[in-house]
């Protein structure tokens, strides 16, 4: 066998490394994008504004800061996930950067997985920055941390899980539709998903065919309502360990299914 065959065999087998390189490049693209910094700055500004609202809300300062602060982190992170997620695949095809990647020993599923992990990594780092801003605002308002503040970490963890699901859904839509269509589909699904519990309640009350249809829909859309504990932690209510385990499993399985769907579509797509 020729000497060139040795690296070729390595290239065929070392997929985790290639996913890592693609993920790092996706992360690097996001952190060099000015739009991202504008959004983070705007989110931190909102966290700061929560302080202002807190100071004019006598007796419920902490509740206001937590509600507004965590909602800002959640909303702006979701906007970042949608804005970047919808272009993850389509932008690479439009600009033909994908051609030179797939002309290398990179499998299509590795490319999708790398893009997904890259954006999730970006969102985790963003959330960390926004969380630091949020806790600084909270400390400024309350002058001390208390035991109940630990539940805020659980709320932030759920927000990250929400980002993972949104990213996976955006990636799924991005694998077969235009960026505009992907943005609309993902945002609509996000909106419906925030009312998933209401949809499930409605499904339980329905009868006959509509019962089965609404039940199917209720379980098909991502349940973002279950991942939102902002209001309860603002009122110092604890977050049960079982809920953390359930939500973790749910978000990861849902994201895995959506990413698998994106991979399945992308594997058979002609890159015209």
């Amino acid at each position, binding site marked *: 066998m020729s000497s*060139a065959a040795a*690296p070729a065999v390595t290239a065929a087998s070392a997929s985790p490394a290639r996913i890592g390189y693609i993920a790092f490049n996706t992360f690097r693209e996001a952190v060099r994008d000015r739009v991202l910094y504008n959004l983070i700055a705007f989110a931190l500004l909102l966290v700061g504004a929560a302080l202002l609202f807190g100071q004019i809300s006598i007796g419920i300062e902490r509740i206001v800061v937590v509600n507004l602060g965590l909602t800002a982190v959640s909303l702006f992170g979701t906007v970042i996930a949608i804005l970047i997620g919808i272009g993850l695949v389509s932008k690479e095809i439009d600009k033909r*950067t994908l051609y*030179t990647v797939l002309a290398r020993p990179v499998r299509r599923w590795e490319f999708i997985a790398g893009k997904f992990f890259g954006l999730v990594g970006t969102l985790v780092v963003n959330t960390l920055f926004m969380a630091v801003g949020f806790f600084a605002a909270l400390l400024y308002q309350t002058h001390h941390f208390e035991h109940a503040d630990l539940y805020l970490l659980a709320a932030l963890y759920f927000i990250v899980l929400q980002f993972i699901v949104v990213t996976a859904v955006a990636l799924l839509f991005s694998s077969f539709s235009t960026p505009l269509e992907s943005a609309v589909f993902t945002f609509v699904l996000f909106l419906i998903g925030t009312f998933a519990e209401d949809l499930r309640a409605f499904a339980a009350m329905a009868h006959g065919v509509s019962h089965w249809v609404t039940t199917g829909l209720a379980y098909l859309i991502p349940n973002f309502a279950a991942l939102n504990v902002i209001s309860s932690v603002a009122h110092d209510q604890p977050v049960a360990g079982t809920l953390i385990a359930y939500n973790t499993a749910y978000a990861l399985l849902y994201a895995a299914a959506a990413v698998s769907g994106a991979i399945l579509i992308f594997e058979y797509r002609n890159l015209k």
Partner: protein
Amino acid sequence: MAAIETVALEKTYGVGFWRKKSRCALRPLTLSVPEGEVFGYLGPNGAGKTTTLKLLMGLVFPTGGTARILGLDVQDPRLKAQIGFLPEQPYFYDYLTASELLNYYAALSAVPARERSRRVAAVLDRVGLTGAGGVQLRKYSKGMLQRAGIAQAIIHDPKLVFLDEPMSGLDPVGRREVRDLIESLKHEGKTVFFSTHILSDAEALCDRVAVLNHGELRGVGVVADLTSHIKGQVEVIWQGAAALGAMAALGCECHATGDTVRAVISEHQLDAAIDAIRRARVRLVSVTPVRASLEEYFIERLSSTTAEVAR
């Protein structure tokens, strides 16, 4: 072993909302390119050149036929480590510097980490981008991007390089440098498959060419054979207007530029023409047989019918 082997490779796209109509982008293509050859893939816009390259790169899936490169299926990851590809009008991650881009592609091609920096510096030097490695690609000119594109295609020292319009966007100096680069790849024993509109480049570089039109292969030929064919005509160049009358009397069409006159005559008129030039006591500069050009072959193949191609 052939470097590239296609058998009845074809691609048809469904068009329209329901994809019921079809558009044939490439008719069954059977082609073989041996290792170590520089192969030119010629054709006008929309001929199917880029479709062929995308099929060979595994970017689109064939509707029929097979393609093997270096004996492996085009989707085999072991193959991809041994080939390099420059797409037409390449656009790269413009937030990266050229060095970062090449490092990224080298990593994806399984170049060992300890070798990457050395390879990146060497390839940047080879494509004439020494000193520009730390500049973000968004600040590159079109010509510099094309060079960066060629650099990424060879960063992992592939055995076979596919170049889609490699001269596009380059100034005359850049084109010359790319020609030199392709020649150096050939001297290293690599196979180069490139598509181009610029026939002079193909004539200067290629061992063989294929002509494609409307998705159909119209002909394959050895460049040296195509251009060595003598057409029975001779180009005569002399200095001095005194011979013009005598040459015109022979029925020659003369073109004068300053004191220098050029005429293309048939071979059987050559003796009479030289006698006329001698009698006029003007200086004969050259007598050259007129050879067929690649351009003539290209035009002739484009206008050929499907039946002629089949013959």
